[in-house]
């Protein structure tokens, strides 16, 4: 019997699952095994973590078994990886198991690390300091919000890059709506604190969207580089001496790549893997590719980006197998819905070279979705997307009219 080669995918989140589904359709099953490994058996719909604290989604809406999204031909190994040995082409697991690979696809994502900031995970953690970037954090915050009597709500970003950069802003908008509906908006003071120069940082978005903060009465503190959290006096402090008091702090802690990247010595100081921004080949070794949040490339860490990357990476993996030159086709394309509260949402579409602009999506001149403009249709689009995610995106089924590379048609530059 011919010896089969192995494609190993590390991580069965959005990136790894899409990749497994793509590859199984094209890779010759007589020559290749496809193996995917993940420490857990649960797939989380991470965009849903934004809705969980406000009771818009329930726990069941955001979690399903990993196995149900993987094709039967793909072997699922539920084990935690402990080290990638790139020279030996092997991945070691905590159980002592090791798996040889001919091609490795790193899709280990990113996660929050609240221990990066002094005092962040101190005595007030999950009492008056919360995150909503984890399932547990979002659930704990839901319980807090259900009974919270009001005061100073501070929504805070520790440092960039973070997964889904607009999520904290969406959280602020939804909080305004949530407390408004509870009839206690006047008891809640919302402040948005960012290390960047503003809530909006790109000229077009600033011009078109700045009204949102005023309209929703959200205060902003910008250029805030947090140094520590004072648990006793309940405030966050920055390196220049600025201080912002809170009664309830909803923070996005430092986002980092997986520990296995750090242990293997493959990442940068935040454990993200240096990756070619066009081909998605790692800079570590030619037979290692990186997909999704695990890369260090200068685009957003978001599911839509991963989805577009997967199409490009899939082609490049096939090219690599055929010993052809890789194509630097990934253009940084992202496409994100932004909830603005009160049943409305925005949609943005951008890439490495083009900032979000106005126009129509996905069909030029028609829409039905409008870019960089609030609408009810965009909100329905965002809610409908959960179905698209579970039923089409993860299984790598084509989404009509939506292309991996950003289309310039129907947009106003």
């Amino acid at each position: 019997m011919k010896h089969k080669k192995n494609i190993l995918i590390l991580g069965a989140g959005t990136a790894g699952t899409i990749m497994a589904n793509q590859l199984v359709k094209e890779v010759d099953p007589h020559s290749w095994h496809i193996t995917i490994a993940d420490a857990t058996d649960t797939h989380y719909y991470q965009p849903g973590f934004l809705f969980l604290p406000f009771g818009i989604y329930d726990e069941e809406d955001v979690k399903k078994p990993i196995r149900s999204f993987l094709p039967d031909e793909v072997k699922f190994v539920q084990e935690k990886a402990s080290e990638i040995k790139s020279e030996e082409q092997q991945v070691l697991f905590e159980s002592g198991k090791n798996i040889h690979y001919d091609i490795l696809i790193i899709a280990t994502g990113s996660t929050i690390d609240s221990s990066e900031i002094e005092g962040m995970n101190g005595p007030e953690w999950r009492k008056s300091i919360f995150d909503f970037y984890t399932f547990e954090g979002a659930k704990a915050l839901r319980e807090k919000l259900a009974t919270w009597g009001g005061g100073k709500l501070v929504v805070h970003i520790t440092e960039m890059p973070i997964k889904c950069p607009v999520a904290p802003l969406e959280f602020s908008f939804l909080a305004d709506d949530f407390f408004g509906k509870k009839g206690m908006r006047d008891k809640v003071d919302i402040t948005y604190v960012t290390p960047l120069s503003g809530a909006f940082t790109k000229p077009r978005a600033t011009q078109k969207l700045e009204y949102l903060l005023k309209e929703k009465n959200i205060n902003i503190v910008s250029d805030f580089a947090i140094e520590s959290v004072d648990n006793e006096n309940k405030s966050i402090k920055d390196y220049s001496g600025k201080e912002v008091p809170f009664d309830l702090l909803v923070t996005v802690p430092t986002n980092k790549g997986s520990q296995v990247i750090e242990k293997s010595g493959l990442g940068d100081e935040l454990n993200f893997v240096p990756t070619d921004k066009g081909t998605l080949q790692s800079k570590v070794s030619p037979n290692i590719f990186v997909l999704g949040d695990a890369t260090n490339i200068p685009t957003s860490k978001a599911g839509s980006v991963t989805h577009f990357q997967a199409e490009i990476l899939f082609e490049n993996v096939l090219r690599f197998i055929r010993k052809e030159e890789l194509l630097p086709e990934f253009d940084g394309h992202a496409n994100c819905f932004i909830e603005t509260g009160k049943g409305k949402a925005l949609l943005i579409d951008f890439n490495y070279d083009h900032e979000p602009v106005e126009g129509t999506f996905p069909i030029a001149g028609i829409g039905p979705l409008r870019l960089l403009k609030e609408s009810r249709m965009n909100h329905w689009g965002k809610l409908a997307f959960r179905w698209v995610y579970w039923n089409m995106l993860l299984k790598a089924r084509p989404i009509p009219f939506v292309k991996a590379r950003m289309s310039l048609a129907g947009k106003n530059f």
Partner: protein
Amino acid sequence: MIMLKELVGNTIDVNEEGFMTDFTQWNTQIGEALATENEISMTPKHWEVITYIQTEYKNNVPLSIRKIGKSGVVDIKEFYTLFPNAPLKTATKIAGIPKPVSCI
């Protein structure tokens, strides 16, 4: 919107916030002039930081204050001393590269 700006005998392209939009136009003379405009008088340590962030920019590595703090060039306190108030914004402006942004 891109505007033209005259600086120490050079014409540079800048955006509405005064950030250069074409790094190839940058030279140390321009860096020095941009520093003066931002009330910074450059020392060798300032230049070390500027060189570091330009290198990271050329390698497509996103910059953050904490990343610079871990760079080995300066710690965060020193970075604030060298470029007070909003150090990353000021330093990137002098370096001739875009300010760090989010997606919108």
